[in-house]
């Protein structure tokens, strides 16, 4: 199964096959496009992170003293827009998904390689427009674009930002479309649905949301842009429109969008836990089905963002009830991951540490979601720092932790190099501690009543805000570290073997880094997913796990 030979440096692979800018910018190789995405989303991550740092610095003191109120409003708006639309949504699907989906199912490429490249260009055009909007005045509507503020009151670059996200949305749609077709049509012989890695199931579920949810925000943004440019009255109560209609349409996408961010991360964690516990995932079928049900139920719950917005109480009841339908499959996943550890043979390599971090943070993030879905409590904590803390636990604690875990897990495959394990474990620890220090105090702040999007606040909230800012600096270091040692490893890292973790999965059966078409020979799958018993049985003298 797993080969232990160290790859000779001169072996041809997707990285050294062709050189030059053109060979990258015109590539249709899913792996190269994944790297293009990796570079671009990292760029946006650090822009968004820079905004976050400024926000935290401003909130160090109760008075608004670091930046102007308008600047602060632009900071949190652009932090949200950049992080949500230009980092989190493309993060795992467009980087790890792009790289791994074809390899895991034994395909040579995605079904539509050129559409794949097109979606990267759309992302770049959207991103460029977003940056242009930020440089020429910025946006101050909040990432939610609530009307009538965004359509009739804001004096900032709403139209440009709206179009930027519209374009980036199509990038996301095309990625989802590509994945669905690829997973349906390109599986290698023997790769049945029940043999698919859970990573693939998660991406399949994600893609469903991408193709069915994203167009709704696209049209909503078209309406916002049109209304702002031409003074139509679709969302403006002064002209007969209903601002709540905007919120309905916006959240119809933006709630499921949370699952675009978290589902792939769940897929990553399933792979990592299985590998480092040397076990098949407990309840494979249930974990796979829970991904799909999260995708479907995710569409039924959007108005829980609107409990105090002025919707009908009866609708609020329905949406609150439905919201719990998403909580069940999420809980099922957590229980199954935990049960997978039972009687495992657990290794503590860096990816596993990230997976543990994910488990802890996602548990807290998920459970605090119960508070927000609960009508009586949401009345109090809605639009406070409680909400901020909750969704950062899901999107940063969950999605980003999974992304980093995945990056560490597959970095040897992607780059063909090994990163320094000690540093990686340290970074995982720093991120976990920094994260909790940043965001846990925000739960308390929210309960005490500090509203979100405040650039100055009453003095009694200061202690918790200082804690949070302190945590943010730790977190910042935690995020910088991996970037540094990943870059370092590309030049100085030891060459990675083809399967450094002795992991199951087709992607490990090809060389590191893979050749342009992934496999020397079309693989034929004759085994179930996560056949760690067979792998370990075949290696009695154990190949030492790297690290």
């Amino acid at each position, binding site marked *: 199964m797993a080969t232990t030979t160290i790859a000779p440096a001169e072996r041809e692979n997707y990285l050294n096959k062709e050189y030059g800018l053109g060979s990258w910018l015109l590539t249709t190789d899913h792996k190269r496009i994944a790297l293009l995405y990796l570079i671009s989303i990292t760029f946006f991550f650090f822009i968004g992170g820079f905004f976050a740092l400024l926000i935290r610095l401003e909130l160090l003191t109760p008075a608004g003293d670091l930046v102007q109120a308008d600047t602060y409003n632009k900071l949190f708006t652009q932090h949200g827009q950049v992080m949500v639309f230009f980092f989190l949504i493309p993060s795992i699907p467009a980087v790890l998904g792009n790289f791994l989906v074809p390899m895991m199912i034994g395909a040579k490429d995605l079904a539509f390689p050129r559409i794949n490249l097109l979606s990267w260009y759309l992302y770049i055009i959207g991103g460029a427009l977003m940056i242009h909007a930020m440089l020429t005045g910025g946006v101050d509507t909040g990432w939610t674009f609530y009307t009538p503020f965004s359509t009739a009151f804001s004096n900032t670059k709403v139209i440009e930002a709206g179009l930027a996200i519209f374009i980036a949305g199509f990038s996301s749609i095309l990625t989802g479309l590509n994945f669905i077709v690829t997973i*349906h049509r390109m599986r290698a012989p023997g790769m049945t649905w029940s043999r698919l890695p859970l990573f693939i199931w998660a991406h399949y579920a994600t893609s469903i949301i991408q193709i*069915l949810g994203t167009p*709704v925000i696209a049209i909503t943004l078209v309406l916002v842009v049109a209304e702002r440019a031409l003074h139509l009255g679709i969302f403006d109560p002064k002209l007969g429109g*209903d601002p*709540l*209609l905007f919120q*309905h*349409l916006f959240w*119809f996408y933006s709630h499921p969008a949370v699952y675009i961010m978290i589902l792939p991360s769940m897929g990553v964690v399933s792979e990592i836990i299985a590998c480092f516990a040397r076990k098949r995932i407990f309840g494979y079928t249930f974990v796979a089905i829970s991904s799909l049900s999260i995708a479907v139920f995710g*569409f*039924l719950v*959007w*108005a829980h963002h609107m409990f105090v917005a002025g*919707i*009908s*109480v*009866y*609708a609020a009841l*329905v*949406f609150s009830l439905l919201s719990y339908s998403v909580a069940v499959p999420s809980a099922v996943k957590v229980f199954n991951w935990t049960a997978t550890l039972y009687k495992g043979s657990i290794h503590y390599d860096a990816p596993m540490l990230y997976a543990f971090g994910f488990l802890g943070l996602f548990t807290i993030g998920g459970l605090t979601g119960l508070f927000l879905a609960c009508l009586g409590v949401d009345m109090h904590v809605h639009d406070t720092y409680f909400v901020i803390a909750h969704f950062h636990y899901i999107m940063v604690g969950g999605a980003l932790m999974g992304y980093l875990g995945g990056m560490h897990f597959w970095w040897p495959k992607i780059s063909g190099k090994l990163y320094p394990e000690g540093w990686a474990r340290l970074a995982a620890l720093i991120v976990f501690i920094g994260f909790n220090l940043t965001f846990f105090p925000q739960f308390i702040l929210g309960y005490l009543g500090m509203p979100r999007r405040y650039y100055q606040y009453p003095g009694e909230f200061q202690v918790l805000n200082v804690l949070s800012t302190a945590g943010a600096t730790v977190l910042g270091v935690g995020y910088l570290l991996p970037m540094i040692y990943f870059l370092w490893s590309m030049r100085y890292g030891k060459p990675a073997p083809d399967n450094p973790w002795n992991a199951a999965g087709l992607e490990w059966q090809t060389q590191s880094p893979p050749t342009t078409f992934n496999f020397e020979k079309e693989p034929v799958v004759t085994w179930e997913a996560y056949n760690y018993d067979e792998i370990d049985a075949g290696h009695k003298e154990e190949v030492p796990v790297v690290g």
Partner: protein
Amino acid sequence: MSVHATSSPLKTYFAVWVTLLIGTLLTYEVAKIDLGVFNSAVALTIACIKALLVALFFMHLRHASEKLLKVIVISTLFFLFILLSLSMADYATRGGGGHASLLLPHITALIRS
């Protein structure tokens, strides 16, 4: 899913075409008769039948040997239905007298009559 092997014969195409044209004419003419609320119902029913005909025969959905395409169509319509119906759930039950309320006045009118 072999599409080209299952193309409908020409006769079906022309029959569908004529039906669609008749449907269009029918929609147009029925709209001129006052049927109250049933005007919209009739118009939408005809539109659905026409759309179904196009999908089944022109887009070869009827002969798609694979269930997948049908599943995609049905589930897309399901999510569209979710979007429309759950937002309506809000608009229909906002109480009181403003015109944001859609359903409640109708229900009271129904009970009274």
